């Protein structure tokens, strides 16, 4: 009898360990892992490591512009099957009008170089007719060109982009922001004489053919000629435009993050010489984060009604900024990078109110390989999801759909982890005598379109996955049942 119990216990243990092992490792051919999200369509993006997708409606078409990092050690410049040429990673342009059958239109090469030292990571798109002095028949894509330049292309025919202008001579670039109604752009740049790799160059790109520089901006201590400690470098800004009159700057990647709230009008029209006083002038406040976390994305959501506070005499609505950290190290080699919600209603005293992370044990993500932790959020402010749902790219934990209607208590309502493919690149950590590598999904960025489709892209070369919400998650966004 005792022997039978032992055998049964052994079998249970074996079954559990097999399940745990299966969860720890993705296999080619295995189905995606999903809850309340389903796959609609796929593009392999020519097996290029992907960063920011931007989805833009052009007439009756929907076009995805997807920025890429540089190539890898193994494949520095993948072959473009449309041209037969090896091309340094740049921008993929994909027609996603029919999301079930995305059509790859064009690869626009970027700067030669590997990983963060090449490619064309960032893309933003504005219609010429919305810009103050744009060609009304044109559609403009603003992209980075590796670390050395920003470029504007006319993509009115997305299969045949035409270069309009170039701002170069930089030592780095990153996640810029472009206001389509004013043309004002907050370009994440590395001006050669600044002490930081990434700061802000404010430009008027209202006439894309004739960029007008407004000023350089950063934290005091980063400017040319300063001495002493150099504050954390910029990751990216998001502006609320002339109406909101605020720009939210996120500094840091996975350490020493800062949310900086800036008066846009003072930034654009205040004194421009980069002195410490002039750099402080437009700042309203800062929220320093833990030294353990950085600020990759700072996404503002003003006037959010909070149901719990509905009967309160004051503070029924709150101004919220969602802050997303970026995980950098593979296999949990750092403090957890996650999502934070800050209440900035009283702007001079912003306060963290809640946080969200994927529970590690739900998928043994620290053992799966690659990065685990957050990287970025969707940045579309289209009504379909704005202030209701947020989508977070969580590297090997795929994309996570959060119900943020009560930002004091964000709640996960869905997720999708794509299957790996033969294109998925390995991720390694150093061990005694060499490296140990694993292959895992690395969902890097996410964006949504006005129709409600969710676009996720992979840093480990697995391509683009177009998703939609299913089940109860649709109700959160007020979408009809699928």
């Amino acid at each position, binding site marked *: 009898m005792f022997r039978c119990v032992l055998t049964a216990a052994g079998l249970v243990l074996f079954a559990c360990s097999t399940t745990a092992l299966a969860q720890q490792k993705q296999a080619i051919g295995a189905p995606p892992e999903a809850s309340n999200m389903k796959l609609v369509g796929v593009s392999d993006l020519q097996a290029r490591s992907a960063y920011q997708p931007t989805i833009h409606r052009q007439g009756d078409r929907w076009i995805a512009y997807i920025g890429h990092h*540089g190539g890898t050690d193994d494949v520095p410049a993948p072959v473009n099957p449309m041209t037969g040429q090896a091309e340094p990673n740049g921008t993929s342009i994909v027609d996603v009008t029919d999301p079930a059958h995305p059509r790859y239109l064009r690869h626009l090469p970027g700067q030669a*170089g*590997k*990983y*963060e*030292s090449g490619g064309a990571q960032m893309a933003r798109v504005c219609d010429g007719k919305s810009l103050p002095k744009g060609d009304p028949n044109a559609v403009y894509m603003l992209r980075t060109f590796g670390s050395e330049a920003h470029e504007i292309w006319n993509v009115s025919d997305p299969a045949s982009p035409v270069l309009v202008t170039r701002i170069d001579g930089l030592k780095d670039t990153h996640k810029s922001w472009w206001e389509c109604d004013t043309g004002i752009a907050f370009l994440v740049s590395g001006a050669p004489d600044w*002490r*930081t*790799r990434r700061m802000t160059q404010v430009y008027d790109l209202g006439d894309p053919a004739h960029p007008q520089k407004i000023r350089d901006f950063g934290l005091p201590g980063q400017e040319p000629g300063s*001495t*002493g*400690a*150099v504050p954390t*470098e910029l990751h990216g800004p998001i502006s609320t435009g002339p109406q909101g009159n605020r720009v939210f700057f996120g500094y840091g*990647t*996975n*350490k*020493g993050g800062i949310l900086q709230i800036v008066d846009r009008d003072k930034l654009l029209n205040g004194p421009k010489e980069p002195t410490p006083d002039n750099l402080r002038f437009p700042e309203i406040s800062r929220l320093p984060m*833990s*030294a*353990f976390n950085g600020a990759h994305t700072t996404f503002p959501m003003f006037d959010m009604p909070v149901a719990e506070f509905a009967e309160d005499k004051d503070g029924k609505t709150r101004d919220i900024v969602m802050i997303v950290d970026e995980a*950098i*190290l593979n296999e949990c*080699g*750092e*403090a957890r990078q996650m999502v934070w919600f800050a209440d900035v209603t009283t702007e001079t005293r912003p306060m963290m109110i809640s946080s969200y992370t994927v529970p590690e044990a739900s998928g043994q993500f620290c053992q799966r390989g690659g990065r685990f932790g957050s990287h970025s959020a969707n940045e579309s402010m289209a009504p379909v999801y704005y202030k209701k749902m947020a989508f977070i790219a969580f590297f090997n934990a795929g994309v996570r759909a959060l119900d943020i209607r009560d930002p004091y208590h964000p709640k996960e309502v869905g997720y999708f982890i794509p299957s790996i493919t033969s294109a998925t690149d390995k991720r390694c*950590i*150093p*061990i005694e005598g060499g490296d140990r590598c694993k292959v895992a999904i690395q969902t890097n960025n996410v964006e949504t379109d006005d129709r409600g489709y969710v676009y996720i892209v992979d840093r480990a070369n697995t391509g683009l996955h177009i998703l939609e919400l299913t089940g109860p998650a649709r109700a959160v966004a007020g979408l009809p049942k699928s």
Partner: protein
Amino acid sequence: MRRGAAIAAMAIALGVSGVGAYQLAPAPAEETARWREIAWPFPRDGWPAGRAFRCDGACAGAELYVRAKRGFCNCERGVADDDEVDRVADIDLISPRFTAVAPGEEVGIGAMRGRARRYDLDGPDSARLAAIGIAVSRRCDLLVAAAQGRGQAGVVQRAVLVFLEMPEMKTWVTAALDGK
């Protein structure tokens, strides 16, 4: 008898002082630099604590702080310029008010390459201190060292670079960069 006891006590003391200290192989007639490990003196920040040492001998009074910083975006370019040294070398742990006194120079520690730079620091009671910042990279990771003292910066820098090349330190650096 008393003389014998004194000699024995001195021998024991010298032996004890050798424990936990690292002695640089000196050139003939050159004063020895000995680095004695001390507690990491800084509050916790975003990076795990490293190791700290105080110098006796050639660089007497100088202190050295060494640590690994894993996860560095410039995987390809490494420590490419002096601004990078200003940003990463931990000089700001000693004092947030520092001024570089000259352009930096290329240095290497083992197979790692990077830069070193000299600084003036604001010390307590308006005293001026000399400091050295060193940053070298291994792929996407950094080894940084900051040293401060009242002695000649050149002497301290040489002593630090020699010390970081010692087998015990190389073993520790490799482990620290591997996340162990």
